[in-house]
């Protein structure tokens, strides 16, 4: 099985059989959406570690996933839980100076834009970060989250409209 050509369900089955290579395949496909989910709740400086924790958890628990095709929703739910837990125990998201603790440091304008996205309703936060931060297209987001393309499109358009209002027309 070529990792690149395998379906998500095939990769999951392979990982459940102990394949680490297949697991790297899942990571390649999902690390950006997982990061987006985490970044919607956690400072940028901490998000990378939380992403690694999520995948470590996934590696340990993947055997309990009964329906391999449900992997996208499963790992994103895990990411939401991990990120929420981290935010409660560590840093309030309102302290945005920690967003600058990444290399290379982003501009304060970038930190402000990220903060504006985080202030949007939860429904739109993740999708907008997947699109604007991670650079995924709408169809790619649908594929990696399990959402329908229609839902993704709606989230993007509603979200960008709200973001535009928050930023006062300034990107």
């Amino acid at each position, binding site marked *: 099985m070529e990792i690149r050509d395998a379906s998500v369900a095939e990769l999951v089955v392979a990982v459940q059989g102990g394949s*680490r290579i297949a*697991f*790297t395949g899942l990571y390649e496909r999902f*690390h*950006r959406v*997982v*990061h*987006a989910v985490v970044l919607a709740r956690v400072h940028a400086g901490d998000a*990378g570690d939380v*992403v*690694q924790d999520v*995948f*470590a958890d996934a*590696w*340990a*628990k993947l055997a*309990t996933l*009964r*329906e391999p*095709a*449900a992997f*996208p*929703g*499963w790992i*994103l*739910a*895990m990411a*939401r*839980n991990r990120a*929420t*837990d981290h935010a409660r125990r560590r840093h309030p998201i309102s302290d945005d100076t920690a967003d600058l603790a*990444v290399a290379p440091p982003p*501009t304060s*304008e*970038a930190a402000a*834009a*990220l903060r504006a996205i985080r202030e949007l*309703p939860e*429904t739109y936060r993740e999708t907008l*970060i997947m699109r*604007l*931060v991670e*650079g995924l*297209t*709408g*169809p790619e987001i649908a594929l990696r*989250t*399990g*959402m*329908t*393309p*229609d*839902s993704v*499109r*709606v989230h*993007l*358009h*509603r979200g*960008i409209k709200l973001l*535009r209002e928050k930023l006062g027309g300034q990107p």
Partner: protein
Amino acid sequence: MSDDADYLWDKSGDDPEVAGLERLLGGFAHQAPLRAPPPRRRRAAFIAVSVVVVAAAVVIAVLLVRRGDERGVQLAAVDGGAAPDGFGFQVSGGAALCDGAAAHAGSAGTLRVGGWLETEVGATAVVQVADIGEVRLKPGSRLRLVGTGPGEHRLELAHGRLSARVTAPPRLFVVDTPVAAAVDLGCAYDMEVDDAGQTHLRVTSGAVSLEGHGQASWVPWGHEVIAVPGRGPGTPVRSDAPAVLRDALARFDAGEGGGWSRSPLGIVVDEAGGQDAVTLWNLLTRTAGADRAAVFARLDEVAIRPEWVLEEDVLAAQPQALESWRESLEGTWNLGP
């Protein structure tokens, strides 16, 4: 920022402002490789069913309920984003009546606040819901515009069928029926109301909260629910659920009990799998005592429960615990077909 949908959707168009946001925020993108996964732990055994008898039934604080019979709500004056003259509509395939005046096929009109729109056999009316979406009223149906304002757009389907597609913040669009209220949470759905008022809701995108009689059913896409007179909304079930599950849920909603092994709830719990997390979650507020404990155990087996959602809080139907679990399940519910 322009409204260039193509670039935002698939980068095929040209939208300098969205591209500017991408450049601004791209520094936060994740690029780190996977760290070596740790040795795999042994698979955790599924939690065995632990039947706990809750000593006293807890008054269920229903989540997100706005009573469906709060029909007397006074809507804000029409202004701002609302449709000042009501909702425009267009008729096709036959004739319709708008406040008693005939509207023939191909004609357009305005449904004003308090007015009724009735489609005759073969006629369909497409009603524009302010600037947030549209309702397609099917033949032989009767629809009223209850109110429209910046905080809420509200219709009433007395009988017949409609399809709604709305793009708006949650709870901005509501459709009342004789037995419940469908509160839009950003969605598309089909609704049918029979002459007795029984309401059948099938969600095709997003989610709807069907509310009434102090009960709320959270119905995400791919699920449907029935509300009957005198009982309020039933338990949602996925649209492709097997007959045995549907039948058992219908009997449970009708109040049928019986010994556990042959009871409708027993059948539901036995038959429910990972795809039925929505049904099981909704059952947590419809059961008590040992029944709720059994539902909890099954849901805990088939779905991820956040660490901070404690078993005892779920068994007590503690609203925050239920809501936290629902939120964590939402990603799974969003799975596409």
